[in-house]
């Protein structure tokens, strides 16, 4: 059943679930929510399984019309969530009546909002996932949709479940779990890959510098401006790339690889940003100041395990 009609997709709306796993050996990127933390909370608020698909709304300015009464959970950036033009706030469940207009303003803090409905949105799975990876032309409502695999104006979003109006669910995320999406970020880094080949001077500069997030960043990679980190060599034999890998091309400007990253890469890599920190990075606006600090595999692993256990991932 049609639940929401897209009146205006704003800058970018994509359907995402936990991502397309196990197809990397064929060159398929995983995709998945850029901010897994906000995504998980949205499903959690509705009592959904974590694999229920959601809308990832990037940059706000989007508008949706409710074709029937529906309960939503909205988490992530402060994009000024409004129902019939009245501010309603985020990180909680919202009930829409048939005919209500849900809209988002420009981002004030953060960049991406997650919108969940009970049971998730209906779309054709490709290799077990509906996650959109636009570069590969896969996922979402399908490549033959008006906006390719992106969500476009006039698209009618159907729910999987018939019971999407759940007035008994009124929940909000406890304030202590709502992150502050600020203009300064400190990212924990696990050293790996070619880290030991970087010179002592490059290492020192890497940890001592304030980088700036470039506007030339997307779901594939976040580019950093600022200090030049001289790579030890121009390339390595192409090898599998992990989420969060920090690759350093010849120009010395690091690139942090995000959810839509390519499966193989031949640039020297300094290590990987701890996965939970990528969620905050995914919400960072261009111009955000970024510093790195070393973290041990054990410490980062422990935090990630508690996150996975809490959300039953």
């Amino acid at each position, binding site marked *: 059943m049609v639940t929401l009609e897209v009146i205006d997709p704003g800058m970018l709306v994509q359907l995402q679930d936990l991502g397309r796993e196990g197809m990397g*050996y*064929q060159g398929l990127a995983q995709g998945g929510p850029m901010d897994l933390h906000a995504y998980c909370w949205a499903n959690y608020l509705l009592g959904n399984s974590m694999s229920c698909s959601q809308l990832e709304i990037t940059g706000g300015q989007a508008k949706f019309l409710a074709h029937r009464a529906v309960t939503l959970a909205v988490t992530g950036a402060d994009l000024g969530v409004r129902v019939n033009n009245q501010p309603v706030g985020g990180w909680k469940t919202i009930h829409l009546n048939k005919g209500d207009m849900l809209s988002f303003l420009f981002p004030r803090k953060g960049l991406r909002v997650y919108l969940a409905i009970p049971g998730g949105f209906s779309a054709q799975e490709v290799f077990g996932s509906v996650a959109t990876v636009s570069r590969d032309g896969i996922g979402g409502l399908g490549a033959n949709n008006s906006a390719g695999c992106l969500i476009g104006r006039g698209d009618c979003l159907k729910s999987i479940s018939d019971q999407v109006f759940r007035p008994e669910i009124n929940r909000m995320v406890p304030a202590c779990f709502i992150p502050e999406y600020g203009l300064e970020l400190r990212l924990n880094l696990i050293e790996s*890959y070619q880290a030991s080949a970087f010179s002592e001077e490059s290492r020192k500069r890497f940890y001592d510098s304030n980088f700036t997030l470039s506007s030339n960043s997307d779901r594939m990679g976040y580019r950093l401006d600022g200090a030049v980190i001289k790579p030890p060599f121009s390339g390595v034999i192409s090898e599998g790339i992990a*989420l969060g890998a920090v690759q350093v091309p010849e120009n010395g400007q690091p690139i942090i690889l995000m959810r839509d990253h390519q*499966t*193989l890469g031949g640039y020297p890599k300094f290590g990987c940003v701890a996965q939970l920190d990528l969620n905050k990075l995914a919400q960072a606006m261009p111009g955000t100041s970024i510093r790195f600090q070393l973290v041990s595999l054990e410490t*980062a692993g422990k935090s990630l395990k508690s996150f996975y*256990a809490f959300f039953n991932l």
Partner: protein
Amino acid sequence: MMDIQPISETALIIKLGDYIDTQLAVKIGDIADGIRNSFASELIEVIPSYTTIYIQYHPLKADYYELKKRLQALVDTFFLSGDLLQNVSKVITLPIYYSLETGPDLPGIARFHECTVDDVVHIHSQSTYVVCAIGFSPGFAFLGAVDPSIAMPRKTEPRKMLPAGSVGIADRQTAVYPSSTPGGWQIIGNCPISLVDFDKTPMSPFSVGLSVKFQPISRDEFFELGGTVWSHWK
């Protein structure tokens, strides 16, 4: 050689060599298959490439140190009993229409090596290649190794778009572009057969370690197999 290193909280990499070698790629393909068969849901991705096997695992279902031990044992067993596995190397043959209308870089390669276009086609279609890695775009297989007498560096300026099926050379590698993408390889022909289909499992005929041969076909055969000629070359 074998070296296993952690990459992130959920990934590790097995390094099995220091330089590109098609024989190593065959072994890596077999070991990657062995790993897929011996492990269950704890492994999310197993991505072989040239000299390495990258593994992503579920942080609650697997522990790095325990995984490392099991993987080490599996790889050791493979190398000890490698000959006993009797891995019959699989070969696929792809029809290629080598021509100026589908391979605009043929004359350039011939000039570069001071030979004829026919020589380039003949040498390219005589070799058996091995899939050393799959990546760049879905189903894009890096094939080694091109005979040095027709090897050529990538174009200085990549083309903004190439038709699906384009066969290219970059240094000593060759590949078929499975979908229409930008690309900087030297294009010498076109394969009319679809090499990527998201509705099929597997979505591509390639896997690391697989052998690939190219069979030259005529213009008529190319069209019969569904090939189309692209007229936007620059």
